[in-house]
């Protein structure tokens, strides 16, 4: 008679890394798995909402990629505290992450601004570089639900230091002190009025005539 010894270990403890809302209407959370103990391991994200005892499971494990949970508009509420945990399970046992608390109002990080363009303008009152950009397409700025502020980085191509310009809620900027013949690089980023900065937009260039 043979005794089959099962090999492998219970899973290591997963860790919830961060949650982000790009437009105060949906949000996503990510976690880092622990060790899988050498066995196939499954992960379950459970949460409850402030004021409710009931626990829910992640509504969508796929939209935002591996080790993530995506909450669409129907599952997203602001100004309430979500309490998340992630449970790792394999043949040898299970482990639960520490709890992670989130209010969607405090995790807003928009996508970068779009369509940054640079043009050289000659007017009677002077010559300047005109920069224009659009808010990220994901996010409702028109209704006032999302209020964005912008920051510009601009420099001559050979320049070492970016000139950093905070332009508030405007989506256009005139830069007067420019040198004919120079090639300029610019990029722009945004943040919700009380959130964290987006990534920088792709860089845009312009070569000024001499």
């Amino acid at each position, binding site marked *: 008679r043979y005794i089959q010894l099962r090999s492998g270990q219970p899973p290591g403890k997963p860790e919830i890394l961060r949650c982000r809302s790009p437009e*105060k*209407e949906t949000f996503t959370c990510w976690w880092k798995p622990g060790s899988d103990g050498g066995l196939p391991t499954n992960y379950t994200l459970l949460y409850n909402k*402030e*004021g409710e005892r009931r626990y829910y499971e992640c509504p969508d494990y796929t939209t935002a990629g591996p080790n993530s949970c995506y909450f669409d*508009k129907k599952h*997203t*509420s*602001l*100004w*309430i*505290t979500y*309490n998340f945990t992630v449970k790792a399970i394999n043949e040898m046992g299970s482990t639960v992450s520490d*709890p992670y*608390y989130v*209010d969607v*109002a*405090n995790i807003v990080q928009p996508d970068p601004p779009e369509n940054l363009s640079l043009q050289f303008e000659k007017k009677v009152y002077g010559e300047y570089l005109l920069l224009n950009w659009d808010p990220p397409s994901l996010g*409702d*700025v*028109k*209704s*006032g*639900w999302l*209020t964005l502020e912008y920051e510009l980085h601009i420099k001559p191509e050979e320049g070492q230091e970016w000139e950093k310009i905070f332009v508030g809620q405007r989506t256009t900027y005139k830069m007067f002190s420019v040198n004919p013949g120079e090639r300029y690089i610019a990029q722009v980023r945004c943040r919700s*009025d*009380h959130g964290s900065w987006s990534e920088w937009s792709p860089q845009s260039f312009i070569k000024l005539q001499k």
Partner: protein
Amino acid sequence: PICPNGSDSCQVSLGDLFDRAVKLSHYIHSLSAEIFNEFDERYAQGRGFIAKAVNSCHTSSLTTPEDKEQAQQIHHEDLLNLVLSVLRSWNDPLLHLVSEVQRIKEVPDTILWKAVEIEAQNKRLLEGMERIVGRVHPADLGNEVYSRWPGLPALQLADEDSRLFAFYNLLHCLRRDSHKIDNYLKLLKCRLIHDSNC
């Protein structure tokens, strides 16, 4: 131009009233987030307060929109009144916050100053909102709905941990409610002044 008191020709436009209100609400929320973060870093680390600060804001009895769809479906007069109610609900606690926070051990001046500034600006914003509601729907000014704050005894508890949690919870709720007010006012401004085309 000389502006004799109350003469119609010098009335501030509704758009200007909203501009001022939004600047104030933005400023108040920024201060509220800063004072919360500063208190959290200095007094709350490792105490697990966040897990207890659940369903404990004195304004939770005021049903407020929790997402864009709800906020857009609510009539602007009702949303204005909600903003008024939340603001009024903070008059009393902010007054006591200023006096009680001074009793916290080694409380930094930056926390003290912010508590004083938030209390003063909240009063100014309430006055501004009453002018706005007076313009938009004068009949509504009479009904003073607000949520009573029962939290003073907790700010004066002898047990330090309980007392610090009471402050933590108050600042957590202040950060949350000031963000709501700021968000609703920006929405209302776009709706009423810019025809939802900001």
